[in-house]
């Protein structure tokens, strides 16, 4: 700094003249850091990139050995994903090739001697996933915020036991209870219903969400609400106006964790749903083509399946960065 001031007497220097600060070594160090980060990110992303590439490969490119890095992209996989097709006889193929009323998708499948006979169930299953995962996430976060607040702030008889009980819900491997739940759901008419799945995922998420949010709410000094209480607000108003805005980080983190669980859940979805409420995860591996496994179709399904979670995480990323570093809320 001193160096700066003496220079300024003669001519203004608008950059730091301290050689030790802008020297070669720090620049090299930061460049190395950047390169290492890029390499690690690339290694982590290889499966995702691979999946993305496969989704745009043709059926034959997808299984070629050695794998093709450069290929002609096609949306064949996506068309297969959303449609049901029928194999054409040679005579039919010739007949179809002369028709001029075919749309681009029909022309595409014609190259494989097939024709589109209707929509597949995948769009519906993706919608089921959205409804079930979305609703169960919203419910679990709402209930968890309320109960975490209660556990954090009030004297509740048997509080520790209750909290342990809630946590213990998570100790049992899910697979162990699938059969009893299956039998229960069949009796109760909840089998293969959206409500049944929302109910199940909500209760599964709650235990984790309550604990996570309790940690966050514990970190909010209770003086905040007390200040609101003496300022003339009711307990509920204080909760809404003071606690919720302060807990936004925790709520965002809980939302993402709950969403990821509900969105990815496989075992229960496989056991407890069939046609009406089947979600995407158990459907994707069942996409089997007629002539071998259609990898590009599966990759297309996986990619579409990935997008909603990526969007939500991206929207909430600002809060998440603080949210996953627990206890980062400064007191006072």
């Amino acid at each position, binding site marked *: 700094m001193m160096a700066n001031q003496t220079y300024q007497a003669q001519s203004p220097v608008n950059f730091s003249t301290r050689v030790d600060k802008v020297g070669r070594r720090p620049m090299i160090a930061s460049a190395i850091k950047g390169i290492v980060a890029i390499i690690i990110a690339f290694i982590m992303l290889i499966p995702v990139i691979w999946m993305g590439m496969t989704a745009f490969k043709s059926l034959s490119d997808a299984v070629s050995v050695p794998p093709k890095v450069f290929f002609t992209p096609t949306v064949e996989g996506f068309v297969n994903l959303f449609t049901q097709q029928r194999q054409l006889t040679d005579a039919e193929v010739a007949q179809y090739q002369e028709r001029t009323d075919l749309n681009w998708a029909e022309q595409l499948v014609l190259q494989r001697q097939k024709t589109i006979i209707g929509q597949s169930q995948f769009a519906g299953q993706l919608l089921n996933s959205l409804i079930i995962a979305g609703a169960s996430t919203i419910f679990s976060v709402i209930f968890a915020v309320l109960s975490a607040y209660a556990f954090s702030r009030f004297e509740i008889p048997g509080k520790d036991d209750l909290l342990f009980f809630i946590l213990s819900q998570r100790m049992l491997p899910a697979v162990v209870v699938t059969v009893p739940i299956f039998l229960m759901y069949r009796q109760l008419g909840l089998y293969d219903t959206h409500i049944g799945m929302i109910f199940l995922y909500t209760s599964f998420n709650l235990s984790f969400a309550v604990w996570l949010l309790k940690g966050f709410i514990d970190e909010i*000094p209770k003086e905040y609400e*007390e*200040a*609101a209480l*003496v300022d003339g607000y009711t307990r509920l108003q204080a909760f809404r106006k*003071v606690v919720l*805005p*302060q807990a936004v980080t925790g709520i965002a983190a809980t939302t993402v964790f709950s969403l990821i669980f509900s969105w990815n859940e496989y075992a229960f979805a496989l056991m407890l749903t069939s046609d009406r409420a089947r979600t995407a995860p158990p459907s994707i591996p069942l996409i089997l083509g007629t002539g071998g496994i259609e990898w590009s179709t599966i990759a297309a399904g996986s990619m579409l399946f990935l997008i909603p979670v990526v969007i939500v995480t991206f929207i909430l990323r600002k809060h998440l960065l603080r949210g996953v570093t627990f206890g980062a809320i400064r007191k*006072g």
Partner: protein
Amino acid sequence: MATIELKQVEKKFGESYAVKPLDMTINSGEFIVLLGPSGCGKTTTLRMISGLEAVTSGNILFDGKDVTWLHPSARDIAFVFQFFALYSHLSARENIAFPLQAQGVKREEINQRVKAVAEMLKIEHVLNARPGALSGGDQQRVALARALVRQPAAFLMDEPLGALDAEFRESMRAEIKQLHLKQNATTVYVTHDQVEAMAMGDRIVVMSNAVVQQAATPSEVYHNPANLFVARFIGSPGMNLIQGTYQAGKIQLPGSNVMTVPEAWKQTLDSKLPADGKVIVGFRPEAVEVAADGEIHSTTYASDLHGGYTMLHLQLDRDVIVHARAAREMRYQLSETVRFNVQPNMVRFFHPETEAALQNGSHTT
């Protein structure tokens, strides 16, 4: 402005007392300081007045009206917290307006009142900033503004300066005092800092172990502590307290010293002490008068320069050390013999078992 009365108010957590049954009247416009070490029940008392803590039994009256079971929001009080409790998601202006919005005050009036209070506290320039961007002092001013803007019946402050650094604390102390003089609002102020208590309080309520030890003006608490706890707790260092044995107008002190009891106290000591004549003699460091012909002999143990004065540590016996405040130009060698007298009107006597101060009915302060 309200008069606050506590009638046999007590608070138990499980089986242990946080506050033992307590009677107290806080007059309208009075500045009361609850003073005591941490865990003495002073904050619990304040929180019971605010309604944030429910009483176990007893009654709290505001202007004669029983508010014991009223919700905090219905008591018309303002509370200033140690850690300010400013909402970090709101700007300073919105923080100050927050209590007014609860009352449904019109927007123009809110703006006007926020502006007025901001001017009074000189924080107009930070109104648009978030609390996180403010200095500690400004945060506390915003917290005070949030309390003041309400014009409540009483202010309750829980160590409002505790989180500030020493330099700020001094100036904020003066600001709060100044505000109180302007507003003349009933204020209950909790602190563990006796300097703060002495400087600010119209009356100090000294608490310890869930019990009020003494409630009196700062000078009364300082010069006539009600018991040994108050004598030790108030003042830095606290009162010199020396165990002695009284007999016929003289007290035997450690180190074969003898102290003549002032005439005004003889009758009291004759009648009120236990049969063996055990007594505790108390006097403040400034009551010590070093004199060549002083009646008490001691040796210097240490001598600290404080700039304005010199604090002497005088050893009467191996374990008995007296603090004495001497003129700043005085210099002493270690282990030098020093003789001193205690100013007769500044000596106090305490019962060794009850630890209560003895009264002779003619205190001078």
